[in-house]
């Protein structure tokens, strides 16, 4: 018997209610598993549903229209999609934490850093305030913020973007969560700071044994951090595999496109984004009946335009949803 995954999504469907008729579906039939201590990278262009996947796990979808429309979110076998609000509050920040893309706006501007870290500890562990502030100080040290005693009493606007992201990480890890959801934690930062933050995440992950879902645009980050990779396109999982499988033999034309769009390491333009594949992700309410990628795909056939290709195993843990990839036998 295999080890039970710490987190698993089974057929997750995330949708937005609309005034009239059927809801629009932003994440469709998404499944994934995350093992203890593992790093799973979710890649894909802007708008393909990466953030909504992470927010669905914590049930923090934009209110009042966003909702989980189907599927299960299993934390050690327990379905969070069915948990009560009170149960979810116990899980957020304690079993599963999240850090966000925008360190400039994700911290509360009118509360001190120390207070924002300490209140997480207080809510979940019920320690007295002095002990919580003590933990906050310890966390600031762990994320290698210089002069932590002074920073504890400062406000977010007194810190640089990189420092604020360290504070976010300190806050997320203060209660030793088993799962960390990191939604593009370095996209808003300078290249040199990016590398430092990623190193920090990796070190703390090794120390605490947390499993990480890292959302990113940047295949360079994936190559550096991932154990496994999940490629999303227009709300669907289109390819999944170990980092070697994906980089050695990308099977889906979309993944191949992402690889070609990736600047070669050392070529200087490290930060270029992935939007160099011609065309754009179709809008939520205008997704074609067949493969969502067909309108942008050089290999698309009539079948691709009419029938959605299923996910098909390609050997090992590798799978892809493409008629041209492993799907020829179907």
């Amino acid at each position, binding site marked *: 018997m295999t080890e039970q995954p710490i987190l698993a999504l089974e057929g997750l469907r995330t949708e937005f209610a609309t005034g009239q008729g059927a809801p629009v579906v932003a994440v469709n039939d998404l499944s994934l598993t995350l093992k203890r201590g593992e790093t799973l990278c979710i890649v894909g262009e802007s708008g393909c549903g990466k953030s909504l996947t992470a927010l669905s796990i914590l049930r*923090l979808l934009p209110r*009042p229209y966003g909702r989980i429309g189907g599927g299960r979110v299993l934390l050690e076998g327990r379905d969070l999609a069915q948990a009560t609000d009170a149960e979810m509050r116990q899980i957020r*920040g304690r079993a599963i934490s999240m850090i966000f893309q925008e360190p400039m706006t994700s911290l509360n*501007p*009118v509360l001190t850093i120390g207070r924002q870290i300490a209140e997480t500890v207080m809510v979940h562990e019920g320690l007295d305030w002095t002990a919580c502030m003590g933990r906050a100080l310890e966390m600031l040290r762990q994320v290698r913020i210089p002069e932590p005693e002074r920073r504890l009493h400062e406000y977010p606007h007194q810190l640089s973007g990189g420092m604020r992201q360290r504070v976010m990480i300190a806050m997320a890890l203060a209660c030793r969560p088993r799962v960390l959801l990191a939604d593009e934690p370095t996209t808003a930062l300078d290249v040199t700071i990016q590398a430092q933050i990623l190193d920090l995440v990796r070190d703390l992950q090794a120390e605490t044994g947390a499993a990480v879902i890292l959302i990113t645009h940047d295949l360079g980050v994936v190559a550096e951090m991932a154990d496994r990779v999940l490629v999303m396109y227009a709300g669907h999982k289109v390819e999944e595999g170990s980092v070697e499988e994906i980089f050695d033999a990308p099977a889906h034309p979309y993944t191949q496109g992402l690889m070609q769009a990736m600047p070669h390491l050392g070529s200087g333009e490290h930060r270029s984004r992935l939007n160099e594949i011609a065309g754009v992700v179709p809008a939520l309410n205008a997704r074609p009946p067949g493969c969502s990628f067909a309108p942008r795909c050089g290999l698309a056939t009539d079948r691709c335009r009419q029938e959605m290709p299923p996910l098909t195993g390609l050997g090992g843990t590798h799978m892809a949803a493409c008629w041209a990839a492993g799907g020829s036998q179907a």
Partner: protein
Amino acid sequence: MGSYIARRILATLPVLGVVAVIVFLLLRLSPGDPAAIIAGDHATADDIAQIRRELGLDRPLLEQFILWLGQLLSGDFGNSIYLDRPVLGLIAERVEPTLALSLTTMAFAILLAIPAGVVAAWRAGSWVDQAFMALSVLAFSVPVFLIGYGLVMGLSLGLDILPVQGFVSLWDDPLGFAAHLVLPTVALGLVYTALLARITRATMLETLNEDFIRTARAKGLAEPRVLILHALKNASVPIVTTIGTGIALLIGGVVVTESVFAIPGIGRLTIDAVLQRDYPVIQGVILVIAGIYVFVNLAIDLTYSLLDPRIRY
């Protein structure tokens, strides 16, 4: 911070100076000779000239102003023409009802409006939100005196629960004091409640969409903590500004309310003084009110820096 406060206090001096000049000119340039008013209907020209000399009205304007300012600074606001008593004493006698009504009105508005605005923003679009906002439009569009007379007729005359009119001092009868304040407070307070609730809802709605609110929820905080500590504290600057503006706007409403409910406060004193052209009293009231305005504004400005650490001076 200390030097900031000092600078702000200094900055109020020009404002107070301009007010003093205007108030001074009000008397000298207004139609009708104050000396003639004081002298009464049957005075001779000599009597009037005598009074002019006593009041110093025959001297050059600048000299009069300096003398008058000197008296003000030593606490002498002159005497009422009709009652022949010091203006400051008259104002002091009338301060309690007005102060009490202003404070209960603001407290009423704040205690009702902020929770209502927060809940409306939290559940924006729900029936609770729609009901609150419809009520606030209603409260906002009905004039104070209509609400006042409506309450007087409906509650006091019809049901005989609360005293209709008048005022009782807190020191004489605390219960009577409270009972007399209920109706005027509601009449005067509804407009401010409506205004403040709408501002609270609007700023909270904006704040609740901020990324840091999502962060607070992602930490597992309960909604009351998210709403009050994380959202309301961020939304507080516009809310406090509105409270300050409300205090300034209150003065006009107080005059009307005191008339409707026959409350012997500053509002009534002002109306009587205007009708009798009792210039020293009018001047005194304007000066005191202007002083309160300036003080409230100063207090509000200083509050900002306590509420938002990004505001530094």
